[in-house]
């Protein structure tokens, strides 16, 4: 991958960074403020994908494929994480009949 496509060069790296930061912050605020577990879960996915986007962009601009390889790893892990996370959410719903995250407080000291 010696030569970047023209279309990608048309957009400067800064834009990619700003976009992925914005996505990450959106996800972060969602995780902190939303009450619904599934939404929280989705917000985590947004954060993951923001990072993925940043990886891809930076690797393209640097002509280094290592970042894109890392994205594949992240996606594999995210898939596993989703299956486990959703299973946990299903079990939580079965026990408490709710998806409100404020009610899952059994870790309170």
């Amino acid at each position, binding site marked *: 991958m010696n030569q970047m496509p023209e279309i990608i060069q048309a957009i400067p790296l800064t834009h990619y960074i700003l976009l992925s930061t914005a996505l990450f912050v959106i996800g972060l605020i969602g995780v*902190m403020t939303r009450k619904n577990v599934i939404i929280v879960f989705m917000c985590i996915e947004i954060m993951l994908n923001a990072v993925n986007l940043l990886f891809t962009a930076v690797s393209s601009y640097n002509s280094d494929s290592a970042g894109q390889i890392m994205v594949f790893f992240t996606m594999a892990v995210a898939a596993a994480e989703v299956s486990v996370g959703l299973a946990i959410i299903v079990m939580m719903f079965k026990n408490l009949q709710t998806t409100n*995250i*404020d009610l899952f407080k*059994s870790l*309170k*000291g």
Partner: protein
Amino acid sequence: MSANMLVHLMLWPPLIGFIINGILGSKLNKTFVQWIGCTGPLVSFIAAVLAYFSFKDQKTVVSFYQWINVPDLFEINFEFFLDNLSFVMLMIVTGVGTLIHAYSGGYMHDDEGFHRFFAYLNLFLFSMLLLILGSNLLILFAGWEGVGLCSFLLIGFWYKNTDYNAAARKAFIMNRIGDLGFLIAMILIAYQFQTLDIRVILDGAKQYPINEPFNVMITLFLFVGVCGKSAQVPLFTWLPDAMAGPTPVSALIHAATMVTAGIYLVARLSAMYTLTPITNQIIIGVGLITALIAAFTALKQNDIKKVLAYSTVSQLGYMVVALGVGAYTTAVFHVVTHAFFKALLFLAAGSVIHGLHGEQDISKMGGLKEKMKWTHLVFLIGTLAIIGCPPFAGFFSKDEILAAAYGHHIIIFILLSIASVCTAWYMLRLYFSCFHGQYRGDHHSWDHAHESPVIMLGPLFVLAILATIGGFFGLPEITHQTHLMHDFLSKSVQDTSHHPSHLFEIVLWLVTIIVLVSLFIITKKRYSNKSIEEYNGSDTGISNVFRNKFYLDEIYDLIIIKPVYSLGNWLKTTFEHQFVQGIMYLPSTVLSKAGTNLRALQSGNTGMYILAMILGLVIFCLMFIFKLV
């Protein structure tokens, strides 16, 4: 037989008896237990007699093995020593011991702890033999502690009674104070003489001048031990309480043998005491106070055994005075006669108690002469012996002590004579109250009163004979006969007392006889027909003080026990609970408080956790940016 063999034969049979009866006793039948228990002392007695005939007038050392060896400093051998003083004590302990073992077979026959009783009694005899035979102070001390232990075990023999247990503990603790004195004396001796061997100590002491301060200290601390064991003021209050034990125990341990161990110790170390006249003054004082206090207290006691106990204390006071004035052989002579007549009196009292099914209160006795002919006879002999009526045993020994006291100082003589008159008074009161007049208890117990079995009467007769003729071992100078006891003992103990003139002796005899006869008449009139109310009636003034034992127990309670208790309480509540526990709980309190406060952070709210995480990340990033890390 060799001396070695004889010492083995003396020492081990009682210990073997203790082991057999102690381990297997509960499974054996009573006759067998009794045989085992009595054989040990009997073998010891025979061995002692054989040893007497083979080795009298000699000083024989029997060494078994080296016990403790500190190279170039000192060594202690497991070694025994036979001389005339040990022979006298051995005869008393094993002889009277055997008789009392036989008597116990009858007295304790219905008791469930029969085997335990014999086991303890045998262990006592073994310890007593160690005490007498030991050639150094460490073996002597082992025996000294052993007899103290057995005394404790036997006073608390009926351990289901809390009062008896308290009496046992009292005896043990009082003795412990004395033993501490003995122990300190031993340490001082080891420091001064680099040995604990009695003969070496006595040789070494002769090199020091009279009243050398260190030696005075040694003899004083030793005398503290004597005060504990031989029940002298201020440590004597345990002995009257020790009457909680079975009567044979009172006879053997608390009258005839163990309590005279202190007298034996001073007689054994007499060569040292003669070099410390200061100590001797203190000894005389203590002995006199003891003899008087105990004699006065005995005047007003209603418990048959308590009267005898106080009379024992009083007689021990006599012996201690004799030691103080330097009449060591006289003191040992009185130990011998006292062992005879006091064992006799206790066993006769035991026979009365046995016959009345446990009644000890003399206000509920009277007229027992008819029911217990033989007991009455031996009790009368014992009484005559203790009050010093010629020609019974007590007359000669007591007369000798009075004479020696007169030779030292007339005030000692006068005070001892007062105690002596009191002795006659309370013993005659006891005798007439028990055996003369009308029975004051209920009819039921009168009908069931009976004479004791032969196994109990046998030892009584033997002791009665000894109490009658025992005095002839020590005929006074005036009869121009040899004083056998004095001659015999002078080969191991040297007297330093002065003998008064013959005229004084004759006057003393006449006065004694006149006083005794008049006392006999007065007390017979006074106590033969007293009503039960008069015994228990309230007293006024000084007699109330006597009845209440000079309030000594109360005084000790007030000045020693109460303060110690409150100190203990203060330590428990203030020192322990607040100070010590405060320090101990400090770390845990800090951690616990910190935990309580920090748990608020563990809200369980996921959002908060993430916020904290991000804040942390931001802080790290900022630190990174501003090159703080």
